[in-house]
Every structure is written in C-alpha cells, then in structure tokens.
C-alpha cells in the first residue's frame, strides 16, 4: 500500500458574506477529504462554483482552511499559518501550474527571471552561474528553446507560455504538482503537446499530480483517479475508467452525458438543467444535489448522503448510487 503523499482531512473553507444576514457564510469547500499517493495522478472535476479553485488554493497552501488538516507525508502543514509555511522547507514540495489565461506570468519578468525566482527563494541558490545552469536545464526539460529565455511573456505564443509556467513550477522539483486548467486556453494541437509533456515530466521527475480541469476528456487522459465535486463537497471518487464508464452519482452521470461525443450524435441524452442551489449556508441535512436531481426523494431532503464505498475504490455520496457492476461487491 502506497504511503500517501498528501492527505486532506475534513477540509472546510467558509467565507463571510457581506450584505447578507449576519454570520452568513459561503461554503466554498465543505468537509472534503482527499488523498494523493506518491506518483499518483488525481483528477479534480466539477463545474463553476463547485469549490475546485478553492481546493487548489487550500492544497497549495495559499490560503488557510477554516477547519481541517492537510498532511504532507507526516507533517501537518496546516499547523502553521500559510505565511509561515511559505518560508518553511515544505513550500517547495507543492507547486502549482496556473491557468495560462489568468496572466500567470509577470509581464515585466523575462522568462529566465521567472524560472530563476523560485530557485533563489525556495532553494536559496545564490551563485549566478548555478542558477543560470539550472534555468537552462529546466528549460530544456520542458522543451523551451534557449533563445526564448530572454523574452517577455507577451512575446511568446500560448504554448510557449504554458511551458514557462510548467518550467517555473518544476524547477524546484516538487513532490506534488497541482495543475489548474493548464491547457484550457490552448489550441488542440498545442494542448496535445503540453499534455504529453506533462505525462513525460511526471514519470521523469516522479511527481504526483492533482489535475484540475473542466475538460473531462483531458482529465481521463492523464489521471488514474478522479474526484468529482459539487457545491463544495465530494460527490464521487473513483478510478478514471470506472468514473467515465459507470458513474454512480447522478451528477457525475449528467456530467459525463454532457461531454460532446460525435459518436453519439443521434442519441437523445439526459440533460441537467437549472442552476446549483446557493452555497450560502446550505442546509446541512439535505443532499446538495437535491432539487436538481431526477431521482430526488424525501430522504434526500432530510439526510445528507455520506460518501460510501461500492466496488473497488469507488465512492459515491448518494442514497441511491447504483452499485457497480462486476468487481468486488
């Protein structure tokens, strides 16, 4: 049994809501537990408002959780504040590759500088020659031509910018790489290259991945396990193939059915309409999907379904989750 690299236990993140009733809280992430093994690639999917961006920031230790713990190996990295963690030895072990679209590269930094900065801060490298060598090696590793090292981000193509973002994150050789929509702004052909690069790097640098994306086909390519979130909670967690071929939670089934598939163009598929219920002070005793779910019953309105196992490593939070066919009961 692999020792988990990262374990999140009952993480919650609540934000106070201005202007609403006193004490109203937005439940961005609500009692989420997650484990990532060494060398494992876990996908995190869900739609806008599900809390995956907040999870990225929680697991990346950019924000402090309201409650809950995160264990990196044996260390509880939530025992110290996020500011203290930033200067601890653990900081370099978790890195994030950000979405290209959100200006994740500093417009006034040249590429070489962008890659060198974490080396100087996290690895405390001082010698200019050493830093330069490491920058070049990292650039080569991600397939970034040397002549681009002196360029500014606005002089790079989308694919090149994506590589710089990856180079910056892997330069410090993290154990866990969190990828937040790393290819969503890229053309298909460029995306393919970057995905192959990510797969290659993972094997070479022996990293674990948390891959967050709205594109389920891409997640399926890179991840061995997928976690589905809805309104701040985990609704399903399963090996990738199982999740896509035999999803057990109604939301996951709607999600999978919504993926455009030319092979099934003639089929009428079930559609999920409406919007999610409010994440502000949600009813703790009702299933979050109640009201939008085709199978809602009174039980759904009165009892929050726990995340239950059913089948090999396949968990779903639904009172009526279909049992998996085949495999172990």
């Amino acid at each position, binding site marked *: 049994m692999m020792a988990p690299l990262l374990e999140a236990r009952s993480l919650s993140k609540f934000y106070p809501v201005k202007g609403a009733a006193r004490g109203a809280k937005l439940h961005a992430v609500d009692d989420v537990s997650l484990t990532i093994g060494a060398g494992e690639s876990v996908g995190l999917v869900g*739609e*806008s408002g599900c809390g995956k961006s907040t999870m990225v920031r929680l697991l990346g230790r950019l924000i402090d959780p309201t409650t809950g713990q995160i264990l990196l190996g044996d260390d509880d990295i939530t025992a110290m504040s996020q500011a203290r963690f930033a200067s601890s030895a653990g900081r370099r072990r978790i890195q994030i590759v950000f979405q290209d679209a959100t200006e994740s590269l500093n417009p006034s930094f040249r590429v070489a500088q962008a890659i060198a900065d974490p080396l100087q801060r996290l690895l405390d490298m001082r010698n200019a020659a050493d830093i330069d060598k490491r920058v070049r090696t990292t650039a080569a590793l991600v397939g970034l031509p040397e002549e681009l090292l002196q360029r500014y981000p606005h002089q790079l193509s989308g694919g090149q910018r994506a590589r710089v973002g990856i180079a910056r994150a892997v330069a410090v050789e993290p154990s866990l790489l969190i990828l937040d929509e790393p290819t969503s702004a890229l053309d*298909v052909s460029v995306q*393919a290259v970057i995905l192959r690069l990510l797969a290659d790097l993972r094997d070479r640098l022996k990293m674990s991945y948390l891959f967050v994306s709205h594109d389920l086909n891409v997640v*399926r390519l890179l991840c061995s396990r997928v976690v589905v979130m809805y309104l701040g909670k985990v609704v399903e967690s399963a090996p990738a193939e199982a999740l896509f071929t035999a999803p057990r939670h109604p939301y996951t089934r709607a*999600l999978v059915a919504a*993926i455009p*598939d030319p092979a099934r163009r003639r089929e009428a598929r079930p559609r999920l*309409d409406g919007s999610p219920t409010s994440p502000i002070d949600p009813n703790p005793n009702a299933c979050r999907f109640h009201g939008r779910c085709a199978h809602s019953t009174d039980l759904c309105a009165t009892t929050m379904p726990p995340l239950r196992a059913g089948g090999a490593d396949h968990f779903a939070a639904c009172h009526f989750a279909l049992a998996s066919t085949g495999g172990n009961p």
Partner: protein
Amino acid sequence: MAQLEIDNLSVEFRTRHGVVRALESVTLSVARGEIVGVVGESGSGKSVTAYTVMALNDEAAQITSGRITMGGIDILAAQPDAMRQLRGREMAMIFQSPRTALHPIRKVGKQIEDVLREHAGLPSRDLKQAAIAALARVRIPERRAEAYPFELSGGMCQRVMIAMALACSPSVLIADEPTTGLDVTTQAVIMDLIRDMSRSARMSTLLITHDLGLAGEYCDRIAVMHAGHVVEIADTESLFDHPAHPYTRQLLAATPVPESRIETLHSIPGQLPDLRSTLPPCRFSGRCERRQPICDERELPWTELTPTHLVRCRFPL
C-alpha cells in the same frame, strides 16, 4: 437552395506590419434548417469569416474577392444602412463571452425590447410581452427580465443573447464560440437549444468553434479551416469516419475523446505560417508529411470525393 452562400471569399487586413491574408477562396454554404460547423484553431480565419458575413469587420479589412449571398441578397454589395436593417432581422449573431457582449447597465428585458423595437416594428405597448415571450423560449423565467447581466450566470447571459438573436426569427444565425467558458452541462443545454430552434424555425446556422467534438455532435456538415483556407467540407459522419485532408486527420488525432490514450495523442508538427508572407498555394504544405514539390507550385484544386465531401488537397487520404 442554400440560404447562406459564401463563394470564393478572400479578405485581407492592412496592418502596420504588412498585409495579412486572413482568408483565401473560402467557399461554403448553409441550407435552411441546417447547422454547419466551422472548425479551426486560432488563426484559422473562422471568426473573420463570421464577421465578414455580418459585415462587422473593422476598417482595416479589405474584401479582395468573392461573394456572400443570403436569401439571394448580395451582402457585400449592400449599403451600410441596408446591412443594419438585415442584421438583427434576417441575420443574427451570438458572440463569445456572453457577459461582456450584453449592455452592462441595462436590464436584460429592456435589451431584448431594444432589439424588437428596432427590427420587429412592434408597437411600444407590445414590446414588454414580446420580450418576456422571447425569454420564455430560452427557458428564462419572467422575473429575470428585470435583472442586470452581472446578476446572471454565464449560462443565463448566453441564453439572453440567444433570445435577443432569435427575437426576430432570423433566417441566418451565426454563433461564434457560443459556449466557450461555459460549464459542460450548461453547454449541452445551450447547444440543444440552438439545435432545436434551428430545426423548428428552419434557420441556417453557422457554428464557429475550436471544439471538434462539439461540432461533431451538433452539426450536419463541418468545414475545417486552416490558415485562412477551408481545407475540407463534409457531412459530419464522413468527416469523422473518412477524414481526407492530412490536417483534418491530425486534428482528429489530437483531440482528446473518451477513447484517447496519452501515448497515442497526436500533436501536429510545425506552426501556422505567417499570413503576411508570400504563401504557397497550399498553406498546410509546410507542416505536411505528404508534401510533394507540386504542392508548392501549382494552384490548389478542390477534389470531390463524394458530392457531399470536398477536400482541398492534391493527395487526399
């Protein structure tokens, strides 16, 4: 007869850094009730095509050849006033990024009323009801007519835009990346809506997208564009089953589908050619492994594989 016909369209942009030959000899047509997808990557010219049809290009754009006819009317020869009449009434466009395409400080109900007032010629007292009816068609409840765009989700904003576009029952709808940025479940609902309205109103729909999978599910025919050329047009099944152009085949191989494996995911070699430079007749030849000397010398013909499957290649697969 096709409702919208684009024939041999070529568009250039005069810029400070040279002349960009954005489109060359683009030909495609959309029949009534048909949904045609225009698929391509960035720089392929798909958005320029859409904007040219709507005559919404900026002044730097120069149409150097070709014709666009809509219901028999020559769009390119039309006066700006005539175009303004057509836009909104006979032809409508849905833009990317719905929240920014709507007026930020005007209630959505009022925005629909504006369209109706301008193009449907309804008397003032009927406007409000007509707007509510338009919203109902896209399944937005009446009370939301009083909302501002920032109060609505991205999906709802897009539906408002669709309601505005369809308020006057146009005969041509151009949807430019209508679901980019939307959740996949919302995308499915929006696309289902577009498809249903297209069929029921016998509307010609041009769907511009970079998502081949999306085009594959919703379009009757697909035109694949690369660097300003249409390289292949076919009905959807033929395109996916027997892609004839090397670019189409590679694009399909690079698009992740449920069956894809990371080891076999294909990446297309090379880059888009610089559209300001002198270009060979086939703009894909620089990246094509099947290239022959003749590809760079002679003019590029259309090859008809079947009456509904055309490819612009000397050596189709």
